[in-house]
């Protein structure tokens, strides 16, 4: 079977404002199977978000190739959902119009888009909040809007960039469980970027560890914990600690490297 996502020897460089070159990713290889839920962990600044931007087509690789369902990515394509780290719901649209945006951009009539949006709003637990503006919602509710906004388009691939990092632990666990429920009910492939190893293991089938920048895949781990999972309780399971320890051994060195570098550049 063709992997849902394949990045082969991908390098991404940026020009810095001071005229230098910053290499975010170097020779990154990565393949994600259809329907897989995988997480990408790594120290800050290792290019995790850049990886998602490349898969989405928002950014192009400097070298190497990005394939989605076997086809090279040449720009933003249909069938991809993206939940951003910061709030990206439209502040001037109501919850209903925010969720209906995707279908409307695809030329679906206002009425049908609204109908589908209502359905999705109910599915993410926001029924009754259709007419609110984002500023009237809590952070967790805004994330639900963002999730519904992405999922209404029926994406084959859902990219998530630390979507829950700004939420409190309880809300976060609820959202993670709901994400798993929504994911298991659909054939979607998920790439979930996080700096939280526990979150990565609880959610995923596979965890990629990225090295300190320039990022490349250091190792990947299968997570064989049974599903359906409850993320609030999964860490009490026997296998969890073992796999956490294994991945953490790998990740720790990278985190230390990145930390040392930050300290040095801060001191310089």
């Amino acid at each position, binding site marked *: 079977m063709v992997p849902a996502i394949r990045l082969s020897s991908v390098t991404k460089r940026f020009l810095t404002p001071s005229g230098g070159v910053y290499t975010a990713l170097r020779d990154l290889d990565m393949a994600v199977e259809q329907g897989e839920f995988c997480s990408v962990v790594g120290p800050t600044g290792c290019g995790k978000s850049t990886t998602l931007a490349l898969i989405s087509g928002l950014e192009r690789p400097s070298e190497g190739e990005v394939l989605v369902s076997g086809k090279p990515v040449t720009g933003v394509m249909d069938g991809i959902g993206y939940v951003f780290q910061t709030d990206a719901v439209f502040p*001037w649209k109501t919850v209903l119009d925010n969720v209906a945006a995707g279908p409307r*951009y695809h030329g679906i009539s206002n009425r049908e888009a609204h109908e589908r949006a209502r359905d999705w709003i109910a599915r993410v*637990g926001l029924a*009754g909040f259709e007419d609110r503006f984002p500023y009237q919602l809590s952070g967790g509710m805004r994330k639900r809007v963002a999730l519904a906004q992405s999922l209404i388009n029926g994406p084959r691939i859902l990219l998530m960039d630390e979507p829950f990092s700004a939420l409190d632990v309880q809300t976060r666990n609820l959202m993670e469980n709901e994400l798993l429920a929504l994911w298991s009910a659909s054939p979607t492939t998920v790439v979930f970027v996080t700096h939280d190893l526990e979150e990565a293991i609880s959610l995923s089938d596979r965890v990629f560890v990225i090295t300190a920048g320039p990022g490349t895949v250091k190792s990947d781990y299968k997570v064989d914990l049974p599903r359906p999972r409850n993320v609030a309780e999964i860490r009490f399971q026997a296998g969890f600690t073992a796999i956490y320890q294994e991945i953490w051994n790998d990740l720790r060195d990278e985190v230390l490297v990145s930390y040392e570098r930050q300290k040095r550049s801060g001191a310089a």
Partner: protein
Amino acid sequence: MSGRSAAARLEMTAPVSAAQEAAKVLNLGARRSRARRRHRLNILVLRVLVAVVGLGSWELGTRTGFIDPFFFGQPSGIAHQLWVWVTDETSLGPLWLQVLVTFEETVGGFAVGSILGVIFGILLGGNKLLAEVFSIYIKAANAIPRVVLGALFAISLGLDIRAKIATASVLVFFVVFFNAFQGVREVDRNLIANARILGADDRRLTTEVIIPSALSWILASLHISFGLALVGAVVGELFGATAGVGELIYYSEANFNTNGVFAGMVLLAAMALLAEALITSLENRLVRWRPPALGSEIQI
């Protein structure tokens, strides 16, 4: 999943018996309207107080001889002048006609200037090449004291309303342009990325993300630019006119009628305040999605 999830329930407040809740809400409603009324009354009283103190000391100054009313006017004289204008007529004809003429010039200039400003601002804000090419010319044009263009327009467009509209619109254009330009530049990159991922084409991106996002900047500039349009219209009348509040002011000035000059200014101020109120209500309608400004809540 169906219906409301556990999380949504968590995010709502604990249940209270329905009757209790209804009584509380009613009570709260009454308290709220009372607090709001009291707040408004306080503001009104303070405003009147400022006017009484300001105008009172001016009047007192002229009566006691500290201030020469010939040069500096006198509130009672200004009020009398306004009364004469309203009940009888001005030296240029009926007062309403003067106000109407200036209002037309101002609104015309305001409309032309702000529409062009918005169009060019969005065009240049969204196109890096255009912005880099034209920015130097726009900065240069902005540095010219633009009221002198009024003289040019009086020659090229004649003494009718077009010259005044042109003068006013030139003043308005730059303010609105720079705001629209900046507004487009400041659009959150994340929102643009999100819209593109969701499937928006370039046209949708402009109408659904860039314009709404720049709108608060544009609307903020409209407050200032109506005042500028008024300046443009009045300056335009200076370069030659047969009617208008500005013309009325020059006529009074030429006759050493200081109170007439002040009375004209009162009329202009009233027009500006009226327009300000209209723009504010437009703004409130268009940017309903913005959280209330800090400190605008009344605590109860």
